[in-house]
């Protein structure tokens, strides 16, 4: 599973979050499981 630039991934077990700052081919695992891609939250632009 590739990692997409700027996306956040989440561990369902320990709630850790990862932000991908460099795209790559590797997979992200935490607590022995692949981390889940988080759906972006729509945030109002404040600046």
């Amino acid at each position, binding site marked *: 599973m590739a990692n997409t630039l700027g996306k956040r991934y989440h561990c369902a077990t320990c709630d850790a979050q990862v932000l991908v*700052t*460099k795209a790559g081919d590797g997979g992200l695992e935490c607590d022995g499981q692949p981390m889940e891609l988080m759906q972006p939250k729509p945030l109002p632009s404040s600046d």
Partner: protein
Amino acid sequence: MNLALLLDMAADGLGDRVAFGARDSGLTYERLRSLSASAAAVLGRAGSATLALADATGPAVPVGLFGAAPAGCTYAPLNYRLPPERLAALAARLDHPFVLAGRDTLAALRGSLAELTATDAWLGELGDQGTAEDTYPEDPTRPAVLLFTSGSTAEPKAALLDHDNLCSYVFNTNEFGSAGEDEAVLVAVPPFHVAGVAAILSACYVGRRIVPLPSFSPEDWLDTARREAVTHAFVVPTMLARIAAAAEADPDLRVPHLRSLAYGGARMPAPVLERALRVFPEAGFVNAYGLTETSSTVAVLGPDDHRQAATSEDPAVRRRLSSVGRPVGGIEVEVVTEDGSPATADRHGEIRLRGPQVSGAYVDQPSQVDGGGWLRTGDLGWVDEGGYLYVAGRADDVIIRGGENISPSEIEDALLRHPAVAQTAVVGLPDEEWGERIGAMVVLRPGVSTNGEELFRWAKERLGSLKAPEVVVLRSELPTTPTGKVLRRQVRTELNAG
């Protein structure tokens, strides 16, 4: 973390998009990265610790900000509109500065500062002196940004923001690359305001083109917004008041592409907001509350909140139009009164903030953050049952009259509803009998007149005699900071002098 990472991500993911300037000729993210790498190389060779920029918003702002970061230098935008001797005094407080100045500022500063470089010449000579592959420190030791506070106090304080503070702010309030290719943000706040720094960082991270407005006038703002098909903007309340008035007077000046209009930097008077909502019905309004010391925005009242509040029958929901919304991700808000109980609408407390974007550090001054990580803001307010934060004003500005605490904002809003009043600032003046009495400095709308007696009666009918201004002085303008914050201390001095 290093701020340079934000630009790296944008250049990797959105390289060909225009980051700054006109749609057809602006700097792309890739070009911005290359110029920033060159700037970093120049700063490194010069042995500088600080990059000071005394200039209006132009390409040197993103290049300076993202060039200082990988060099481990602190970026210090200065108020270039200050008198030369005051500007030179601020520059003299900086650690090993490399000072860039615009043409006019440069000429004025010649006698007062030894080493100065013209911004445009510096930019023109940057070329390709660094490479995008240059490495930068992961954990820079110097702060990322130094901002002098606006000087409502006598001596401006030098507030410091770390790379981690600013990166946390950007990550918690934005989604990477989420802007459409057509989006553009009009940056009208000057670079030395924290909102001017935050605007550059957020826009690069989401991929929204920055359209600079180096010098504000309402006509220029509307004109530039229409010409550049601007979709997003941030303004301070005084700007919004003038923009709404100009657009209302001339429908040809409307801005059809504007989707999001954020405001902050000072308290928004309710009548100004109501007028703006009327004039720009298609825009989503965003109220952003923040401080220099918190890397800008810590609470947001979003477009849906505005719509719900404006149309609700429930007074508690309607009132939210005057709130600053709810905390952004990662920010904790606590508002307690002096005896430690939670503040309410009738009993305000001091707003305290905690979170990764909160700094509170200054040069040569103790941190404003306590052992538990809480920053005391000096702002008074309260939180409603829905978690919406209300800011009543600065603790120092509260008027105590006959034992009662009175917030100037309530009186200002009432006076602003008078058809002749364009702007006003209300302050407390010493009074032997009542402790304080109420004074108002008022700017009238063009072509109309009123007097102190009439305004006293107007306020008395609406708020009662305790809150009506006994002293009213008419002026052609209010004393403000360059970003439109009223200098209440000066208003007080002038009203005291009669």
